[in-house]
């Protein structure tokens, strides 16, 4: 009854690009091969090292959270290939707009581990200087950053640059109006932006099927934006796909959309309990597609990864973890009066008055051992006694 020409595409009919199979075979892909023609075994080994380090960071941060050193942590387990492959495809001048989960991306871009941890320890809302590593701060409002990436990309065009902007987003984010408006603007202004969607199959407890019954990569063509679906657990294919998109953008081809099909092997965050909403079969199924395991097989088959080399990489990752732990637990608590800093660039009389007041208020406690704020949420009414001079 309905017009067959315009029937929705069947999910299974969309081609998922792949260069390394789940069991570690290098396969050909007509579109992507040329974008990784220069990737030699050394480079592949580098990607492997990145992924091992990112996973090690994830393990350590999760442990730190359990030990009360971090307030929260959003695991990346299972998404190492998507994160590493995408960031390694970019040039240093390309600007990244990540979500809260792209801590592996930030790390590869050179964020200090203490900077990454600061956010999750509750010290600050960003650790790094966005302009130092060309990575924006982790975005928590779902989808908002895709508009920032688009605007930044519009700015790149205006400035006549060949760089690109990339906006990371999750499968859940695709439902937000902001992501739609990003694609509308990106298409309208042919902005050199890459929408890099990690479909990790879950938005907290909601399966991707709740957001869309058809592949997420199928949305973009409706805006005139070319898109690709890529195996998000295949670091080489992800690298190639992002290079494809970046090449399009640099040569004036405008925006692209990449759906990296991957899986969130861990909890949504350390506050989440995924056993409440998903079974083990899915986990096992995806465990068999592990991004690190498959590259290990490939590298071993090429003689690039003997026991010694792997041990060396593991030791390097342990060193990273140790540094992470050390820099995290030694982060100094922020100074009270900094809550008034950087709200405005210019002087703001009303806020200044509040600051002065609070400074004087705090000074009233200085002679006593007890600091202020101790009464917060406490039933102990005794804090006040003796705390004021």
């Amino acid at each position, binding site marked *: 009854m309905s017009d067959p020409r315009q029937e929705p595409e069947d999910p299974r009919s969309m081609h998922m690009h792949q260069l390394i199979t789940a069991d570690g075979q290098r396969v050909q892909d007509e579109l992507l091969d040329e974008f990784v023609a220069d990737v030699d075994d050394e480079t592949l080994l580098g990607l492997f090292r990145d992924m091992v380090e990112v996973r090690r960071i994830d393990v350590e941060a999760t442990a730190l959270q359990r030990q009360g050193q971090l*307030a929260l942590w959003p695991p990346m387990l299972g998404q190492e290939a998507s994160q590493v492959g995408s960031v390694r495809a970019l040039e240093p001048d390309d600007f990244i707009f990540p979500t809260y989960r792209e801590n592996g991306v930030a790390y590869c871009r050179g964020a200090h581990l203490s900077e990454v941890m600061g956010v*999750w320890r509750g010290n600050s809302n960003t650790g790094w200087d966005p302009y130092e590593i060309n990575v924006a701060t982790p975005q928590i409002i779902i989808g908002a950053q895709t508009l920032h990436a688009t605007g930044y990309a519009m700015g790149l065009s205006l400035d006549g640059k060949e760089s690109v902007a990339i906006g990371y987003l999750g499968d859940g984010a695709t439902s937000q109006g902001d992501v739609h408006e990003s694609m509308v603007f990106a298409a309208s202004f042919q902005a050199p932006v890459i929408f890099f969607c990690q479909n990790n199959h879950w938005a907290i407890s909601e399966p991707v099927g709740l*957001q869309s019954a058809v592949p997420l990569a199928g949305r973009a063509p409706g805006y005139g934006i070319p898109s690709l679906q890529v195996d998000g657990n295949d670091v080489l294919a992800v690298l190639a796909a992002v290079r494809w998109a970046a090449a399009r953008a640099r040569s004036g081809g405008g925006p692209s959309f990449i759906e990296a099909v991957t899986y969130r092997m861990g909890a949504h965050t350390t506050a989440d309990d995924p056993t409440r909403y998903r079974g083990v079969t899915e986990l096992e199924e995806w465990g068999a597609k592990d991004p690190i395991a498959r590259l290990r097989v490939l590298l071993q088959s090429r003689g690039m990864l003997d026991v010694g080399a792997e041990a060396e990489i593991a030791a390097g990752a342990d060193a990273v973890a140790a540094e992470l732990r050390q820099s995290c637990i030694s982060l100094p608590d922020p100074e009270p009066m900094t809550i008034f800093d950087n709200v405005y660039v210019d002087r703001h009389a*009303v806020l200044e008055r*509040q600051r002065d007041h609070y400074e*004087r208020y705090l000074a009233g406690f200085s002679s006593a051992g007890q600091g*202020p704020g101790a009464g917060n*949420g406490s039933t102990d009414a005794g*804090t006040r006694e003796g705390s004021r001079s």
Partner: protein
Amino acid sequence: MSKLTLTQAINAGLRRALEDDPKVLLLGEDIGTLGGVFRVTDGLMKDFGSHRVIDTPLAESGIIGTAVGLAYRGFRPVCEIQFDGFIYPGFDQIVSQVAKMHVRTQGKVRMPLTIRVPFGGGIGSPEHHSESPEAYFIHTSGLRVVSPSNPQDAYTMLRQAIACDDPVLYFEPKRRYHAKGDVDLDADLAAAPALDSARVAAAGADVTLVAYGAMLKTALDAASAAAAEGTSIDVIDLRSLSPIDYGPLMESVRRTGRLVIAHEASQTLGLGAEIAATITERCFNYLEAAPVRVTGFDVPYPPSKLEKHHLPDLDRILDGVDRALGRPNSQTGMED
């Protein structure tokens, strides 16, 4: 009487509303299988089905906007916004549609939505998870705004909010989610205090202290501490933030002559401004001192390691009480 946590009380209220009225529906992110990130809706999808407890796509405007359509069709949607800071993508639908539909249609269409919003800080969360956005909605004509401070009110007021034919923003004091209290699950709604009524939470004679939500507990603690020092504080739990029930406030201020308002939201145009202005208008000749506001500062909510400095605590409230009583304190001499 059952001893329930505040979340259990809300859960019980939702359950009761779902049982009593087939037109009641729950909509939100992760409220179904997971039972909500705070487990407030735990078990409800299992018991009432996925057609009444609906996990929605991740889009707040979509949640509110489809709820408007459902209300148009006679349903009573109860929407969950996962955290305070995630309500803004739905702001347009709330302000331009939910709040205005009844007047727009000259009374023909009703919007009996309840929008549940866990709000406030003090739980050590990252950005956007600790905000107090109530003032935006209090300023919006056409909405009602309430906030319970204890399990009994959480239960009763939620049922009243869902039964109310006007849209109600129901702000849940998430810092107090685990606080326990007696809840009469069979309380007669009609006999219960009205949804728009305030309540005297502790009687006192020297100063009137107004608070709501999680801050009520801090206010009561402050009153105890002050009592030990010989100052008697009348604590009023607002419960309804729009409209405000000025009766008990005026009665109290006309006795005490002194008013302190405490809230987590930023000071400028936080609810304290309205209460201070209105009480001054209506009780000017009774006031011995200017109403005092003890509030969050005019800054975006700070990182959690600093939140104890932003949130009014017992000490800051007592400092405000001192000011209201004309005792020299940290703000003395700062009139200019």
